[in-house]
């Protein structure tokens, strides 16, 4: 059994690109955990998408042996957490599994909104926090200002902040020493008590089945034990117990305070819930760990194969992805416009994009993604409450008493030059200002906003109006009633279900006009004129007319041209496959997303 006094469990909190992965790489490298020849960048980020986007989707962990200046060798367990708001519950569980955090802030950039959200999670978990100022080698580094900002905005003492350059390696030994000296060891657990371990995260491995990352609180995890998941009730025999270095390495047992992995012939990730408590089947612990929450999708959209013959491939791809990700849901959806597809629920927009990209990239299926929707609560006149995640399913409004929509608390940090633009954007999206404070030349605004105004293009707009200088984070705060209606779009007098949206009644005319104008640009001219209308119920609230195509003829065509012209026609026919036939109208696939983008 490892003496808990020589264990330190920690995470790293940082904004994207502030150097979290590079710092982790340096810690692993400097302690000789990985041989020099095996080093590659972002060791902990396994998936291509994680590496490319510089984000972490799954929690990863690594055990580092560090001989400290006090003569003892310490075991440092780093849990690398998903940093994104979509995975805030997963982050909270990872935070619960460790006792301290390194707060890494880019000394050239300062504190960002995402840093705030994650650091508050660390504070909520009662972490000891060590501030680390990174990129001090860059000329633009402003150490004093950023340290002051950490004190002002976050409210933690930054006088002992460690100054490093993860890139050049400067200050890394100081970080290792600070982990040992300034972070607490795990609280005293009891190896003799019944097993109590937290399920931190899990991932699917094609050879081993599901690999579960665990943190032991009490008792001992050993190979051959029969364990029980207290929330899901599943029981399994442990095949392997081990630690990541960062490659998998089996150990005999994991005791109180330790972090490692187990495998137990678990077939799918769905059987392992983040935050669940693992105990032994017999003589197990009585009370599970607090704070467990089932993951609930908040953003829904339809995924349709561009080539409708690929629907089965799409379903296979989703099923395979679901092996490794229990947090999204899917069900078959049939759209008059788009054919068969899947209605999928995600933890947030990033989650949606990651899954969509993986389907397109790893399974080579081109997708049409319909506009994301949130989950509305419909209170029916008969007292029933229904959830609505697809506007196409909206029942007859005469049966609906009221509609509630999810609201968020959005935190935006922005240089004050762009504050006006940000306030206007939030007002335009039905936001209610809650707070506005300054830290140096930057403003922090807090808005109460409807989630449905944010799920689509809010972040793109925010980036564009602030030239990329704003950072943004949000949390869902609850549901509130508002005057919401379903707006349908009719093309050539037929409703196109995939273009229906829920909108606020006061904004319906404006949105309807904008969508009709957009569609008029996106749909190519046909041989006949096409009315494009927006309607609420039977009432048309906006209308545009796409005039008929007048001229498409080859002026000159003689004997020599027939072969070439035939090729052009074949190309044209192939191009038609990129369109969706709707009645007599062909709608380009990008229209299903582009029509909803708001430029102003």
């Amino acid at each position, binding site marked *: 059994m490892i003496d808990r006094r020589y264990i330190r469990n920690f995470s790293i909190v940082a904004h994207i690109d502030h150097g979290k992965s590079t710092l982790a790489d340096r810690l692993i490298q400097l302690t000789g955990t990985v041989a020099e020849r095996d080093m590659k960048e972002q060791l902990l980020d396994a998936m291509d998408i994680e590496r490319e986007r510089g984000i972490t989707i799954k929690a990863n962990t690594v055990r580092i042996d560090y001989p400290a200046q006090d003569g003892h060798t310490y075991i440092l367990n780093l849990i690398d957490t998903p940093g994104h708001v979509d995975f805030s519950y997963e982050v909270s569980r990872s935070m619960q599994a460790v006792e301290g955090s390194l707060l890494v802030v880019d000394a050239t950039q300062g504190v960002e909104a995402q840093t705030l959200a994650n650091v508050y999670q660390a504070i909520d978990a009662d972490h000891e926090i060590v501030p680390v100022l990174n990129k001090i080698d860059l000329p633009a580094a402003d150490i004093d200002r950023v340290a002051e900002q950490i004190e002002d905005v976050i409210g933690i003492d930054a006088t002992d902040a460690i100054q490093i350059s993860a890139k050049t390696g400067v200050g890394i030994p100081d970080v290792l020493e600070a982990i040992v000296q300034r972070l607490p060891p795990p609280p005293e657990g009891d190896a003799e008590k019944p097993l109590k371990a937290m399920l931190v995260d899990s991932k699917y491995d094609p050879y081993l089945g599901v690999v579960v990352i665990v943190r032991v609180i009490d008792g001992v995890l050993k190979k051959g034990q029969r364990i029980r998941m207290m929330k899901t009730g599943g029981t399994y025999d442990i095949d392997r117990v081990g630690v990541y270095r960062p490659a998998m390495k089996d150990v005999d047992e994991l005791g109180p305070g330790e972090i490692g992995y187990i495998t137990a012939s678990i077939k799918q990730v769905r059987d392992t819930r983040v935050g669940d408590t693992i105990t032994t089947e017999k003589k197990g612990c009585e009370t599970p760990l607090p704070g467990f929450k089932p993951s609930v999708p908040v953003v829904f959209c339809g995924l349709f194969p561009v080539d409708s013959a690929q629907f089965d491939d799409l379903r296979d791809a989703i099923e395979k992805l679901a092996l490794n990700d229990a947090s999204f849901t899917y069900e078959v959806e049939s759209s008059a416009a788009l054919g068969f597809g899947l209605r999928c629920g995600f933890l947030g927009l990033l989650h949606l994009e990651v899954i969509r990209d993986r389907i397109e990239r790893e399974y080579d299926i081109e997708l049409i993604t319909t506009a994301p929707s949130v989950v509305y609560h419909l209170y029916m006149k008969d007292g029933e409450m229904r959830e609505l995640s697809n506007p196409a399913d909206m029942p007859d409004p005469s049966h609906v008493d009221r509609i509630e929509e999810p609201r968020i608390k959005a935190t935006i940090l922005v240089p004050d030059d762009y504050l006006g633009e940000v306030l206007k954007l939030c007002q335009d999206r039905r936001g209610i200002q809650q707070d506005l404070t300054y830290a140096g030349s930057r403003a922090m605004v807090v808005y109460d906003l409807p989630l449905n105004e944010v799920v689509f293009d809010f972040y793109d707009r925010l980036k564009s109006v602030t030239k990329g200088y704003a950072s943004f984070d949000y949390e869902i705060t609850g549901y509130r009633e508002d005057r919401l209606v379903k707006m349908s779009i009719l093309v050539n007098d037929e409703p196109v279900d995939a273009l229906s949206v829920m909108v606020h009644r006061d904004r319906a005319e404006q949105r309807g006009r904008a969508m009709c104008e957009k569609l008029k640009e996106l749909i190519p001219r046909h041989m*006949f004129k096409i009315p494009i209308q927006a309607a609420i119920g039977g009432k048309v609230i906006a209308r545009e007319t796409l005039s008929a*195509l007048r*001229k498409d003829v080859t002026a000159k065509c003689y004997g*020599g041209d*027939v*072969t070439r012209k035939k090729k052009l026609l074949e190309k044209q026919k192939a191009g038609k496959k990129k369109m969706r036939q709707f009645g*007599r109208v062909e709608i380009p696939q990008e229209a299903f997303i582009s029509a909803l983008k708001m430029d102003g």
Partner: protein
Amino acid sequence: MTEAAAAPPAEDWRAGGFGLYLHWPFCAAKCPYCDFNSHVSRSVDQRRWQAAFLSEIDRVGRLSGGRVLNSVFFGGGTPSLMDPDLVAAVLDRVRATWPLANDIEITLEANPTSVEAERFRGYAEAGINRVSLGIQALNDADLARLGRLHSAAEARRAFDVGRAHFDRVSFDLIYARQFQSLDAWRAELSEALAMAVDHLSLYQLTIEPGTAFGDRFAVGRLAGLPDEDLGADMYDTTQELCAAAGYAAYEVSNHALPGAESRHNLVYWRYGDYAGIGPGAHGRLTQGGTRIATEAVRLPEAWLSAVERGATCESRTPIPAREQAGEYLMMGLRISDGIDLGRYSALAGAPPDPARVAALSQAGLVETDGKFLRATPDGRLLLNRIVAELLPD
């Protein structure tokens, strides 16, 4: 077995006739809009070319001997750069190779410059009975923009020389040019109709990739082109003025007095057989019941040396009946006769989709009497779409 499959259309080409196309690939200068196979060369050894043409006529003659020839067409490039002696030798060999139809049409494309007009007498003596002049525009500013080497006045003089030597004289104009207004085109076309003998080809300027105009267009440096609506208005005006002058639009861009239609081009549009000789020339030649698409080597020197060595100078690809149906549809709907539905069905194995024909007919774009299917005047402007609709999937 379907009726169509029981009667394979082995000699389908007979419904369209048989023509010979000869391609002269050289020009004095390359026009910026032209994507034909044309090359500017400082010196051309016309005797070598003559020998190559004669040897090709012999070869093609062996493949199609005994057929009655309806038309010969010298195209290019600029065939009016050919020596009249070369043309005479070629036509002598043609007469020795195929029986000629009584009303055979022998056309030569010519640029309306004074130098070329001097050769017209020689062409007439060689047997050319129709010239097609590339006048293109009737004002000097536009001729310069189009890269033409002649002035409007020079073109008119060449036209008069042509009239003196040939019974049939046609000329081409390009419209929907840069900065051209509807009124300006109306005036120019009226002038052209006053000049015309019996035939006019009126093409809307098309920006083709791989041309000087195409390159400029791609980088946004070709200003003043009409939009789709103005282009359509200009087309409508063209139809209106030509019809009033008695020049029926027998094809999308071709207008003629009754009986003066270009027989050679009708061979293409009626999907007959045609032999193509010369660099880059295309042909459709039925042999033993199989229609073969031929395409000659494009580079002049490569073609010439292949012929001289007795090597293969063209690709030969059999065209399945269904594809022939598509080609017939594409070509046949361009002319006022339209397509013969019986002939089409025999090739395609089935008539065009009745639902699609009905929809197009209801939209006023096609009309049919059950035997023929035609594009209406409105439909002609949308012919690419109509063909795409009607082609079997």
